[in-house]
């Protein structure tokens, strides 16, 4: 084993770098670009990262990182401050609480869990919007965002694969 592998995994590698990548990709998708007359979809890129953080290991820094991601989305997309932070933290808590059940599951089952977590995030967004604006958001639009987010699970899987067993202190 090399010396670098024996060291603990620094938080910036599994929390900081993915967070910055999500911010950058989300920003690019918020640009008014069109291809063949169609605008880009708006998936919740933060979801795979938050899901992977909860699966990789419990950490004190992960919830503040999810809060920062949520606040960034609020500033970029124009939702009320705290909206996406709550929507991301609730599934994070759910997955963190169910880590024991997720251990050793196949990729398909993990994808189903990810879909459930995404459903919880968008479901809480639906309820918060209803409470705030007294209007039920269009379910078709919510469905499209759900589908666009669910297909991003391979990114979460890659993060989990890379970092779940990367810190010797947690083996």
């Amino acid at each position, binding site marked *: 084993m090399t*010396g670098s592998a*024996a*060291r*603990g995994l620094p938080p910036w590698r599994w929390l900081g770098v993915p967070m910055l990548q999500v911010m950058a990709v989300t*920003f*690019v998708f*918020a*640009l*008014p*670009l*069109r291809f063949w*007359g169609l*605008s880009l979809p*708006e998936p919740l890129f933060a979801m795979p990262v938050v899901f992977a953080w909860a699966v990789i*290991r*419990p*950490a*004190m*820094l*992960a*919830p*503040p990182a*999810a*809060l920062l991601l*949520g*606040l960034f989305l609020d*500033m*970029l*997309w*124009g*939702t*009320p*401050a*705290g*909206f996406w*932070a*709550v929507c991301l*933290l*609730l599934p*994070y*808590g759910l997955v*963190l609480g169910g880590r024991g059940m997720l251990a050793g599951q196949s990729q398909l089952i993990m994808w189903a869990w990810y879909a459930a977590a995404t459903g919880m995030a*968008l479901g809480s*967004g*639906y309820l*918060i*919007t209803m409470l*705030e*604006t007294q*209007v*039920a*958001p*269009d379910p*078709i*639009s*919510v469905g*499209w*965002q759900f589908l666009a987010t669910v297909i991003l699970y391979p990114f979460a899987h890659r993060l989990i694969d890379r970092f779940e067993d990367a810190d*010797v*202190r947690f083996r």
Partner: protein
Amino acid sequence: MPLRDNPLGELKVPLTWTAGIAFIVVLIVAVAALLSDRREAFDTDEYGNPRTLSDRVLAPVGEIASAPGRLTGQGVEGVRGYFFAVSENRRLREELEKARRWQEIAVSLQDTNERYRAILGLKTDPPIPMASARVVTDSRGPFAQSRLANAGTERGIKPGNPVMSENGLIGRVVGAGQGVSRVLLLTDPASRTPVMIDRTNSRAILTGDGGPNPRLEYLRGSAAVREGDVILTSGDGGLLPRGLPVGVAVRGLDGRWRVALAADKAPVDYVRILLFEDFTQLARTQNLTPSGAPPPTPGAETLPPPPRLVAPPPKAATPAPKAGASAPAAPPASNGATPPAKAAPSPGGGR
């Protein structure tokens, strides 16, 4: 440094518990932030300094980041224009022919309109100044739909200003800073816009829900609207001017009346922000265009003269006429005590 040499390497922290506590604390912070923010507020102070600051950072970055896409699009359009120049020229000639016919009709209608206005003593809307801007970011999710435009307070833009594309209304400004303004789209769930159906003059509230076609709420009457009716802003409440094109009425899949937005006819890259505030700017009479009665057209039929009102017995000082008194005013008395015929509008009405 090997793990064993690290003094914290042997530290056993109940990680799950500390992570759980961190999660709860952060969740409380997020909920508190959510409860203290309201996006429907149109006051700059309510919009918040952090949000204004982030918009000021995001706008120039978005402008730079979207430049390659914009330039590529312009290049593609240029190539397409080169190859389809002949058919485009033919189409434009046909459009020009139609437009010339419409121009003749418009001149005639303008003449008639000015006469009616002069006869009825109607107060006309002042010309509304506007600022052009480019869209630099665009959020299209189901819970928020807004855009950042690269013009702000330096151009006189304020929260509440209506925003249009070349085809119709797209929303209104909810936050403005130096060089940037955030536009809340008509489709945002927090958006409410007073509109009217052009054919029946019925009123409704256009309510966004995150979908492409906002709803028509609070419609009265069973036949107030039908498929294809043109929807315009009603101007009720004084937030928006009257008569801006919004779209056409369509029946949604859920059976509700919805509006196919006129602005969706073409991509919205550039917007016009109307520097409209409220009815109080109507009081600036120097902004009103002079609309004296034009001379009658020789040989044309003329309307009968307006009925003369019986003037009350003269008093020492005639009170100022009230707004909304649209009947033609009696000729001013020769003593000069009568105020000018143009009345100051009452707040929230007098249109």
